[in-house]
């Protein structure tokens, strides 16, 4: 399944609204201006996901994982490479004189909250768009290799799944931390989402 250019543009625009809300929430929390770069969206089959992400996350991956359920169901993840995760928490909390080298419990908590805000904003936006009620699981932070991570989200082999990969970067205090938002959906859910995006896009044009 491929997105047309117009669909990709419309989806990016919608996600950008969620990003703006996330940026505003994080700015308010930290007292620093936090901006998320406009998203770049691509669709992959879950089997292709590894190849698409491997270049960005060669070592350990920090991921915040939330499962959502309802008429549209799937997995939503915020992915950062380990160093990026450490840097992001340092930038958001600025508690230390020296850059941290590892994620302590408090840093993991912050990452979980950041992922929670971002994933809620995006999934909430999708829910509104589809006019469906989506329920969320508690966000969980995982530190593992990309293979372990991908193994944990593609458990259902009975149905073909697609991954919406949204590339962005957090801009805070003259620094930039790259991140990926990965939303894994069943083919039916993705179909429905794209249809609604088409409708929204058509309405915008009016």
């Amino acid at each position, binding site marked *: 399944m491929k997105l047309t250019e117009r669909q990709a543009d419309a989806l990016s625009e919608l996600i950008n609204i969620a990003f703006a809300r996330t940026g505003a929430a994080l700015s*308010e*929390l*930290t007292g620093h201006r936090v901006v998320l770069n406009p998203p770049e969206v691509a669709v992959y089959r879950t089997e292709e996901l590894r190849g698409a992400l491997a270049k960005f996350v060669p070592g350990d991956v920090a991921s915040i994982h*939330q499962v959502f359920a309802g008429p549209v169901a799937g997995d939503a993840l915020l992915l950062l490479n380990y160093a990026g995760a450490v840097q992001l*928490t340092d930038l*958001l*909390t600025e*508690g*230390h*004189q*020296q850059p*941290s*080298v590892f994620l*302590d*419990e*408090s*840093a993991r*908590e*912050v990452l*979980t*909250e950041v992922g*929670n805000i971002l994933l*809620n904003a995006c999934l*909430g936006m999708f829910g509104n768009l589809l006019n469906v*009620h*989506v*329920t*969320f*699981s*508690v*966000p969980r932070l995982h530190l593992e290799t990309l293979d372990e991570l991908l193994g944990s989200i593609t458990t259902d082999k009975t149905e073909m799944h697609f991954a919406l990969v949204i590339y962005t970067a957090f801009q805070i205090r003259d620094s930039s931390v790259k991140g990926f938002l990965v939303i894994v959906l069943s083919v039916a859910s993705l179909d429905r989402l794209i249809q609604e995006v088409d409708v929204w896009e058509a309405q915008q044009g009016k």
Partner: protein
Amino acid sequence: MTAVSKENLLNAAVLHWMHDLAAQGIITTDHELNVAGWNQWMEAHTGKRASEVIGHNLLDLFPELTERRLDRQYKWALEGQVRVLSQALHSYLISMPAVSVEQGFAQMQQAGRISPLSHEGRVIGTLTIIEDVTERVAREAELQSQIEARSKLLASEKLARSEAERANRLKDEFLATISHELRNPLNAIMGWAHMMRLGKLTPANAERAVETIYRNAKSQAQLVADLLDVSRIISGKLRLDVRTIDLINIVNAAIDSIRPAADVKGIRLQTMLDPAAGPISGDADRLQQIVWNLLTNAVKFTPKGGKIQVKVQRIDSHVEIVVSDSGVGISKEFLPHVFDRFRQADASTTRIHGGLGLGLSIVHQLVDLHGGGASVHSDGEGKGATFTITLPFVGVISSQQEEAAEPAQEEVTPFDGLPSLRGLKVLVVDDEADTRELIREVLKECGSEVILSRSAAEALEAIEQHKPDILISDLGMPDEDGYSLISKIRALPAEQGGQIPAAALTAYARAEDRMRVLRSGFQFHLPKPVDSAELVTVVASLAGRAYQQS
């Protein structure tokens, strides 16, 4: 067990755990945020009993939640979102005192989670879980400060290491310089000596060879003297022989000794010596060395036809010696390192100016020992340099004002200007044949008769047999050293040579060596390498100075 009773059992267990057992705060509300559940942990930490809060609106009970915009978290929870609240970004959810103040927090540090409570797809309320993370946060802060302290330590260790490496590099450069500087004169000495041995030199060339050998040996002796000075200064063994002295005499003596070198380069030496500048308190030899080093430096770095000015003036309670030149000057970068040991502005192998870079370091240390100060000024490369030495002034002129010492670096004294040693019988004791021969040649040249001995035993025999007038003895000899020899001689009756005037010849040139030599029964101490003129002068002055036991 029926399904219903199983559900009842589970519900009872959950309620029991939530209310009584949980180590977290648990609050449940209905969909209007009216408190429905308030566990024992919340009672214990807020001081509010469940009966006081149940049925009341959570945001009314804790207006702070709205003030801190946490009411929105409840709004989102009611929309179905799970919200996590980190300690690092919020500190706490509901204000409670810390359990223990040991961790340094007055407020309990909390992490929280607010979830929707749903029933049949509909949100019917919220569930808040509050965790006390104060201890964890304190532990993390402690760990972080340890990491920071460690990395600071690592950084300072790294700095110390790079300093040590720099010092090591300087030492290496110095060793390279020293071997070069020592080898250079040696090459000339060996080369000319070899040609002389072959006997193929014309008389004119032979004279030139001797002249070259002498000049190079002299320059090498100066290098060794500098090195010894530095080693004494470093080890704190340099002692000043402090007396009240006339600085003008000393400066004049130094100028006289440098004048030939300045004349060769056509450098004008200008002096402005204030007679009111002296006296000062100091070591005459060392002060002359200071002035001589400054002047040598100035001559070395001043091009042909340049000018050197020496000024001595009294300013308030101190005396200033100012040596300025019109030489190559000093770059701004090198200026702070001028007095550093082993430093030369140009350390390259192709540099024009030789030397070890010790002279100015010695000047600085010697001035320090005199309680004075040394400073340097230069407007930059090519713009000359000015060295200023300040020394404390002594107010009262001592009635026993000491004469300034003779110049340490006297010019080559021609043999024919030396006193005659005719009629003197000199016994020379040294285990090294070369030294024996050299001394014999020098003394014979001045007319004395010379007897040579290779050891203390031979010397004692020679004294008995030849009754020499004067003894020149080496100190370090195998079997029996010079100290032992002189003590045996001094034990002899006068008629058997017990009072023979004696001088010790040694490479041990330290002050304490000199003291030991004089105490042991010698009247003079001649440091090696022996200077011919000095040797002859010493022998002449020893003649007729029979040893008097004090």
